C-alpha cells in the first residue's frame, strides 16, 4: 500500500459514517496493514507498538503483534544486530499471524533498517518513516553512513520519508531517547485515525506507576506526534473497524497462561528465570497473591519442579514454567511425577535450540524432548495451544487432566505465542474451573494408594492429612500399596497401568477437524503457533483452485484418533514445522537416513503413512507467503510438473543485498 502523491487519485469509496473530516489529506483505504517500529534497544519501540496494537484491538481491528528482540539487553547503538522493535499486523477482520512483508516501518535510525532488510521483512515500496537527526550528526562517520544507507534504500526501492523525531521531541523534553516512542505512537494514531481518547487512556495505563508528571509529558508527546503527522504527511489510512458483538480481551500468550493458571485454581507457580518463559511469572507476581496464589522463584530449574511436585503431593496441583534448557533439567522430576503419579502442569515456552540456541526466538524443537527425553519412557499427556486464547483455556484443561490422570501434563507454547498479542473472546468464568479444596476426609481403610482401575489405570490419590491414607511415595518400582517391588510381574503391571491412563484418555477424544475439504491433493499438518499462517496460506491457495487442506493438532500425546483415516483422503501429507529437518538435496541425505521434522517423525511412526515435512529454523514465526510457495511447489510436482521443491534453506533471506529486495 504505497501512499500515492498528489497525482494519484485516492481509490475506493469513503464510508460516510466514519470517514474523518480531513479534506486536505489524501485518504488511502486499506483492508489490512503490517506496521513495524524498529529502534535501538531501550528506545521503547515495543512499548509504542504494544500500545498501538492494543489500541487498534480496542477500536475493533484484528491484531497480531510480534516482538523483534535482540539477545542483549543493551547492544551497541546503531548496530544492525541490535535492532529492537515490534511488528503489528492489523486488519478489518481477524488476524491470525504476522503476515509477510511490512507496509510501513518507523525506524529510529537507518542502521536498524538493514537488519529488517536482511531478514526479508521489507519489500519494494515499503513506506519508511525515518528519523533524520543522523543526517546532521556532528560525527562524520555517522553522516557518511547515513548517506550510504539512503542510497542503498533508494536502490532497494524503499519509499523513505524523513521525519524530524528528535527535533520535534526536543520541543517538549530534554531526553527524547525516552520520549520518542510516544511521539511515534501519536504519529501512528494520525496515520491510522486511532481514537485519541483511547490512546490517552492507554498512556495513563502503561505509565500508571510513574506519576502524573511522566503521564503528562507522554500525553503531550502523543498529541505532538499526531499534530505533526497531520500537518506534514499529507495522507492517512482508512482501515475499517468492526466492533465485535461479544466482549473481547487482548493480551499476550504468557499473560494468557498466567491468567489461565489463576482461572484453573492452581495456587503455586514455581519457576526459575528463563527466556522466553519468565514473563508468565512477572505477570502472575503482580496479581497472584491477591487471588490466593504465590509465585516461588526457586534456586534452579530442578528445584522449581521439585517444589511444584511437593506442593502437588501435599495439596493442590501446582505448575512450573520453563523453556528448552530448563526442560532438560526438569526431566528427572517429570519422570518421577509419572512414576509416582503426582499431578503437575509443566508449561514449556519453546525457543530455538539446541543448547542455549536462540533464547529470544521461536522454534518448535522440544516436542520429542518433552515426549521422550526422560529416561525409562514415562507416558504422559502433551498439549499444544495454537492461539493465545487457547493458552488461557488449555491451562484449565491441563490442571483437570493432570488430576484426572494423576500425572504430569506438558503444555508446549512458544516464543511467538508468548510475546504475540491478539484479541479473543472474553472468557466467562465458571466455578468448576477452580480446583476443589484439598480433600481431608478420612481415606477408606484398606484401599491402597494406587488402587488402579484395571481397565483405565486411573486411581484416586491420598493427600497428606487424610487419616488412614498414609503411604510412602516412591520413584522405585512399586505395587498398588506403593511398596517397593522389584519382581517382574509388579513392574510390568505398574508400567501397564500408567500407560493405560493415556490410552483411556485418548478414547474420550474426537477426530480433529480438517481446515478445507476432507479430501484432496495435499494435506498440511501443523501444531502450535503456526496455525494462523498455515491456514491463511491454505485459504489463499484454495482461492486459486488448489486442492489443499490443513490439519492442526492440539494434543500431541496421545494423538487425537482418526489421523490415518484423514491422511487417507489426500495424495500427499506433509507437516509444516519450526524445527530442523534434513533436506533431501543435502549431501549424504537419503529418504532412509533423513532426520524428519518432529511431528512428522511421530506421525510416520504412529500412522505408518509416508508423511513428508517442510521445516525451518530461522527463528521467526512462519509466514503465509513461504507456506504458499511450499504448497504450489508440492502441487506442481504432484501433477507431474517441474515444481520447485522448497528446501529448508531456500526461502532464507540472510545476507540479502539490499538492492535485491523481493
Amino acid at each position, binding site marked *: 500500500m504505497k501512499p500515492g502523491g498528489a497525482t494519484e487519485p485516492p481509490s475506493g469509496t469513503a464510508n460516510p459514517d466514519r470517514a474523518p473530516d480531513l479534506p486536505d489529506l489524501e485518504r488511502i483505504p486499506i483492508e489490512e496493514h503490517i506496521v513495524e517500529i524498529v529502534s535501538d534497544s531501550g528506545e521503547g519501540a515495543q512499548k509504542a507498538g504494544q500500545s498501538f496494537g492494543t489500541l487498534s484491538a480496542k477500536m475493533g481491528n484484528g491484531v497480531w503483534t510480534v516482538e523483534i528482540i535482540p539477545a542483549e539487553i543493551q547492544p551497541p547503538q546503531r548496530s544492525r544486530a541490535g535492532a529492537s522493535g515490534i511488528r503489528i499486523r492489523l486488519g478489518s477482520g481477524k488476524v491470525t499471524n504476522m503476515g509477510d512483508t511490512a507496509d510501513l516501518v518507523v525506524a529510529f535510525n537507518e542502521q536498524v533498517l538493514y537488519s529488517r532488510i536482511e531478514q526479508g521483512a521489507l519489500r519494494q515500496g515499503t513506506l519508511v518513516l525515518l528519523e533524520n537527526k543522523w543526517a546532521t550528526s556532528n560525527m562524520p562517520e555517522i553522516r557518511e553512513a547515513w548517506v550510504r544507507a539512503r542510497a542503498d534504500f533508494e536502490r532497494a526501492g524503499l519509499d523513505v520519508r524523513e521525519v524530524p523525531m528528535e527535533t520535534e521531541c526536543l520541543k517538549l523534553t530534554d531526553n527524547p531517547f525516552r520520549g520518542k516512542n510516544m511521539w511515534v505512537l501519536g504519529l501512528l494514531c494520525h496515520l491510522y485515525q486511532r481514537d485519541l481518547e483511547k490512546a490517552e487512556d492507554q498512556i495513563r495505563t502503561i505509565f500508571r506507576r510513574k506519576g502524573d508528571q511522566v503521564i503528562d509529558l507522554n500525553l503531550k508527546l502523543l498529541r505532538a506526534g499526531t499534530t505533526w503527522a497531520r500537518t506534514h504527511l499529507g495522507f492517512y489510512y482508512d482501515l475499517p473497524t468492526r466492533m465485535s458483538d461479544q*466482549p473481547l*480481551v487482548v493480551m499476550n500468550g504468557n499473560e494468557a497462561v498466567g491468567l489461565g493458571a489463576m482461572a484453573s485454581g492452581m495456587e503455586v507457580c514455581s519457576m526459575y528465570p528463563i527466556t522466553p518463559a519468565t514473563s508468565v511469572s512477572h505477570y502472575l507476581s503482580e496479581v497472584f497473591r491477591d487471588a490466593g496464589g504465590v509465585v516461588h522463584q526457586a534456586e534452579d530449574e530442578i528445584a522449581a519442579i*521439585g517444589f511444584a*511436585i511437593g506442593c502437588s503431593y501435599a495439596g493442590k496441583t*501446582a505448575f512450573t514454567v520453563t523453556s528448552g534448557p530448563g526442560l532438560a533439567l526438569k526431566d528427572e522430576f517429570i519422570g518421577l511425577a509419572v512414576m509416582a503419579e503426582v499431578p503437575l502442569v509443566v508449561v514449556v515456552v519453546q525457543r530455538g535450540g539446541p543448547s542455549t540456541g536462540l533464547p529470544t526466538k521461536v522454534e518448535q524443537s522440544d516436542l520429542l524432548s518433552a515426549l521422550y527425553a526422560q529416561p525409562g519412557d514415562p507416558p504422559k499427556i502433551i498439549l499444544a495451544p495454537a492461539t493465545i486464547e487457547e493458552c488461557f483455556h488449555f491451562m484449565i484443561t491441563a490442571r483437570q487432566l493432570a488430576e484426572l490422570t494423576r500425572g504430569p501434563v506438558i503444555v508446549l507454547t512458544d516464543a511467538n505465542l508468548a510475546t504475540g498479542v491478539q484479541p479473543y473472546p472474553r472468557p466467562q468464568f465458571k466455578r468448576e474451573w477452580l480446583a476443589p479444596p484439598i480433600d481431608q476426609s478420612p481415606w477408606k481403610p484398606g484401599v491402597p494408594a494406587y488402587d488402579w482401575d484395571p481397565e483405565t489405570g486411573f486411581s484416586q490419590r491420598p493427600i497428606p492429612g487424610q487419616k488412614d491414607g498414609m503411604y*510412602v511415595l516412591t520413584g522405585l518400582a512399586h505395587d498398588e500399596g506403593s511398596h517397593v517391588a522389584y519382581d517382574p510381574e509388579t513392574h510390568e503391571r505398574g508400567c501397564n497401568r500408567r500407560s493405560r491412563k493415556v490410552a483411556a484418555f485418548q478414547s474420550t477424544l474426537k477426530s480433529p477437524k480438517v481446515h478445507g475439504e476432507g479430501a484432496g491433493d495435499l494435506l498440511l499438518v501443523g501444531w502450535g503457533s503456526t496455525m494462523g499462517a498455515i491456514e491463511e496460506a491454505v485459504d489463499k491457495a484454495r482461492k486459486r483452485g488448489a486442492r489443499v487442506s490443513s490439519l492442526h493438532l492440539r494434543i500431541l500425546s496421545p494423538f487425537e484418533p482418526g489421523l490415518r483415516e484423514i491422511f487417507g483422503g489426500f495424495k500427499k501429507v506433509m507437516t509444516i514445522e519450526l524445527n530442523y529437518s534434513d533436506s533431501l538435496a543435502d549431501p549424504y541425505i537419503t529418504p532412509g537416513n533423513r532426520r524428519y521434522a518432529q511431528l512428522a517423525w511421530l506421525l510416520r511412526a504412529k500412522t505408518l503413512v509416508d508423511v513428508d515435512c517442510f521445516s525451518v529454523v530461522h527463528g521467526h514465526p512462519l509466514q503465509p507467503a513461504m507456506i504458499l510457495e511450499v504448497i504450489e511447489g508440492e502441487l506442481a510436482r504432484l501433477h507431474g510438473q517441474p515444481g520447485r521443491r522448497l528446501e529448508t534453506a531456500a526461502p532464507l533471506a540472510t545476507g540479502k543485498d539490499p538492492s535485491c529486495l523481493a
Partner: protein
Amino acid sequence: MFGLMPNCRLDLKKPYYCMADYQGAEARWCPGCGDHAVLATVQRLCRDKQLPPEKTVFVSGIGCSSRFPHYMRTYGFHGLHGRALPVAAGIRMRRPDLHVFVVMGDGDCCSIGTAHWVHTIRYNMKMVVMLFDNEIYGLTKGQTSPTSRAGTRSSTHPSGSVLPGLNPLPITLGVTNVSFVAQTVDWNPAHMMATLDAAYEHPGFAFIRIIQRCPHFAKGLHEELLANPDRTLYLDHKQGITLPDEVARMYKNRARHDPSDLIAALTHAMRTDVIPIGLFFQDRSRTRYDVYGAANINTPPERKEAMLNRELDRFAV
C-alpha cells in the same frame, strides 16, 4: 495408653499414639547400621509429641538413609537423589498444618543436592532436617563421599582419596538466614533425642548433622571417638541441648557455648581435634519463607473469581 489424659481422665475420642503407630515396614539396613538408632529415636519423638501420623511427612532423597520414610507409618516421599529439600519446601509452603521431616545422606545433601541445601537453609521454612553423615556412599557400594576424610580407601579411590573431607557445619552456619544448627551422634540416644526435641520445637529450618556409622563400607571409622570420650566436645549451655546429669557426666571435655553466638559457633564447627556435639546456633527470629507462602491459603473462591474478573477487565477491549 489410649485416651488417658494427664488428669487421669479418659477421653475416648482422643487418640493416643504409641511407638507401634509410627512403625512402617521392617527396616532393611545392615545390622549395626547407625540408621536403626535414629529411626527408633525419631519414632520416640513422634510418640512423645503425639504427632498424628496422617499429619506427618518424611521426605528423603536416594541412598541408604533415604529408605527411612518406608520404615515410618506416616506419609512419606522417597524422591530423587539430592532433591529432598525442594520437595519438602513445596510440601511445607502451603501446608502449615503438617509436620515435615527431611532425611538425607552425605551424598544427597553435600554433593548432588548442594544447591538446595544452601538455598533451603536461607528459605528457613519450618522442618526438621537430618543429615545422616557416614562419610561414604553405601547404596552404590562404597564410593568416596564429599565428607570422606583424605586417604579414605574406597571403590573410586582404591589407593586413598586425595582431597580433605568437606565439613558441612561451617557451610550451614555460613548461609544467610540460618536459624538452627546442631550435631549429634548415632550412639548416644539420649543426646540424639534431646537434639531432635530441640529441632522439632524450633520455629524454622532445624538442621542436624548426625554422625552415623556404616559398619559395612566405613567400618571402624569412629572407633577412636567411641573409645575415647575426650575426643568429643560437649557444647554445654542452658539455651542449648541439655542432658540429664547422669548422661552428661560421661563427657569430661566440655565447652560453655552460647548458641546465639554465631562466630563462636563457627569456631567450634571448624575444629578438627575434637567432635563437638550439641547446639551450635539458634535464632528463633529469622525470616520464614513458609509464613509468607501460606499467608493466603484460605482465599475463598469468590475472591478468586473477583480477581479474575478484575484482571479480565484490565485486558478488556
